[in-house]
């Protein structure tokens, strides 16, 4: 394991210092591990708070800024934040219109955000939570932890953030956030495992001849291991899994996301395949994103996320956003 870090213990804190130094539009509380917009809360605007384990950068801290999140709470590597962070972030960004928690569906995130929501409510903050669970690699059922939240989180944060910026009320912002989640599906493939700095070894062993299908973003092994093959076939596995769960039609927002160690040239190769395969099914790739957005440390691989756009969602996606990792319109 080779990492550009000072120590496994300090990596989250050191990266937050870097974030603070690089982005004057952010205010970073390094000690309490909260990343805010420097401008502070706007009275009457719903506050958006998200968070989760570190190691998925730019998610979430890279999405704090105008048109997206008001605060992000990074936990330890792959470990959800603790309630204190979320409570403090929520009370700080509440402009009187309440706060939306965007929570990826993992037991740890769900439990910590639930506790935080209760505590924040006790402090007088009106909180709504939206659970993102877009990963079709996981079979959903009443008796399991349910699907994981992955790439759609970015879509939810962007689109709900744009609506919040218009002054829409909390219930509306939460409704749109849930709608984005319901209309989005993801599937990930790993060509190599990631290495958690504190663990010091890859989260699973994958030979040169194998790929891990349906992998999670925490180095969780996927649902199946298969022979390594070309980009076209690997993308087809992802696109097929998504379309089997959610037939696609109309205008789509499509992200081909890198897991952290996949070069951009390869992501564009994958995007060409994804776009071609989705259009062959009669849908239109109306908006897109190609790059490293919801990563898994140094994992090699990619995920495809598809959102069936409505006119409203497309308009909100196009609205200005100004964050370290996503920016247009200003």
């Amino acid at each position: 394991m080779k990492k550009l870090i000072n120590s496994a213990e300090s990596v989250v804190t050191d990266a937050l210092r870097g974030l603070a130094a690089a982005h004057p539009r952010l205010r970073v509380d390094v000690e309490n591990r909260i990343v805010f917009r420097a401008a502070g809360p706007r009275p009457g605007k719903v506050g958006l708070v998200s968070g989760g384990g570190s190691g998925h950068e730019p998610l979430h801290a890279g999405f704090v800024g105008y048109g997206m999140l008001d605060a992000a709470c990074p936990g330890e590597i792959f470990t959800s934040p603790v309630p204190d962070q979320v409570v403090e972030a929520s009370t700080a960004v509440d402009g009187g219109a309440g706060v939306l928690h965007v929570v990826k569906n993992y037991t740890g995130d769900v439990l910590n955000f639930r506790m935080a929501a209760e505590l924040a409510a006790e402090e007088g903050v009106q909180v709504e939570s939206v659970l993102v669970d877009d990963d079709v690699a996981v079979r959903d059922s009443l008796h399991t932890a349910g699907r994981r939240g992955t790439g759609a989180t970015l879509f939810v944060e962007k689109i709900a953030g744009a609506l919040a910026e218009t002054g829409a009320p909390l219930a509306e912002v939460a409704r749109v956030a849930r709608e984005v989640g319901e209309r989005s599906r993801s599937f990930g493939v790993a060509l190599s495992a990631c290495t958690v700095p504190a663990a010091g070894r890859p989260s699973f062993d994958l030979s040169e001849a194998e790929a891990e299908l349906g992998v999670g973003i925490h180095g969780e092994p996927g649902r199946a291991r298969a022979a390594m093959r070309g980009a076209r076939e690997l993308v087809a596995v992802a696109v097929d899994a998504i379309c089997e769960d959610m037939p696609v039609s109309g205008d789509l927002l499509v992200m081909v996301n890198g897991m952290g160690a996949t070069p951009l040239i390869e992501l564009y190769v994958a995007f060409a395949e994804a776009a071609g395969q989705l259009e062959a099914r009669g849908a239109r790739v109306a908006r897109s994103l190609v790059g490293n957005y919801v990563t898994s440390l140094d994992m090699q691989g990619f995920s495809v996320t598809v959102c069936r756009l409505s006119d409203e969602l497309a308009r909100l996606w196009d609205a200005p956003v100004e964050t370290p990792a996503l920016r247009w319109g200003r």
Partner: protein
Amino acid sequence: MGTPMDAEFFTAWIGEAARAVRAEKDRLTRLDTAIGDGDHGVNLDRGLTAAAAALAERRPAAPGAVLALAGSTLIRKVGGASGPLYGTALREAGRALGEGAEVSPAELARALEAAVDGVRGLGAAAEGDKTMVDALAPAAGALARAVREGRDLAAALEAAASAAESGAEATVPMEARKGRASYLGPRSVGHEDPGAASGALLLRALHTVAVR
């Protein structure tokens, strides 16, 4: 005769649990790497170390307060699934103990049941779902039974720790239905659940301080 179960006893328990988890940190992380995300050892180590430090600093006078402080420290320091779950377990146990300065074996058994109920209430896992519940629930059952049968504290806690250890071992062939391991479906079979393994360590630590 035997150890009085006072604030000092429970403080010693948290200290012993922290020591045991640190000693087994790599194993826990390895188990969590196999079917989860590889942080369970580090998570619990961080949390229990902080809990032990908080107890050393604040020195709560009653067993209930010791467990409440340990529990809320876990919640405040761990994150992940195990932070809220173990934190709630300790807080519920602490609440069950009330404000008394010393705890009877029967009270301890009821507190452990309250802890398990807390975990169940929060995480919605049943026995057989391949979680910490599979270590904690049998331990609570064994402790209650041993106390009912009038066995002494050391023997009762030995029964509880053994039950937790067997329970943890019994998770190996299970298919996970809760937590991160559930994503693996059938591929989760053949691995011990890290939370069940740490649950067994906590129960064994309780026995250790009781027989010291």
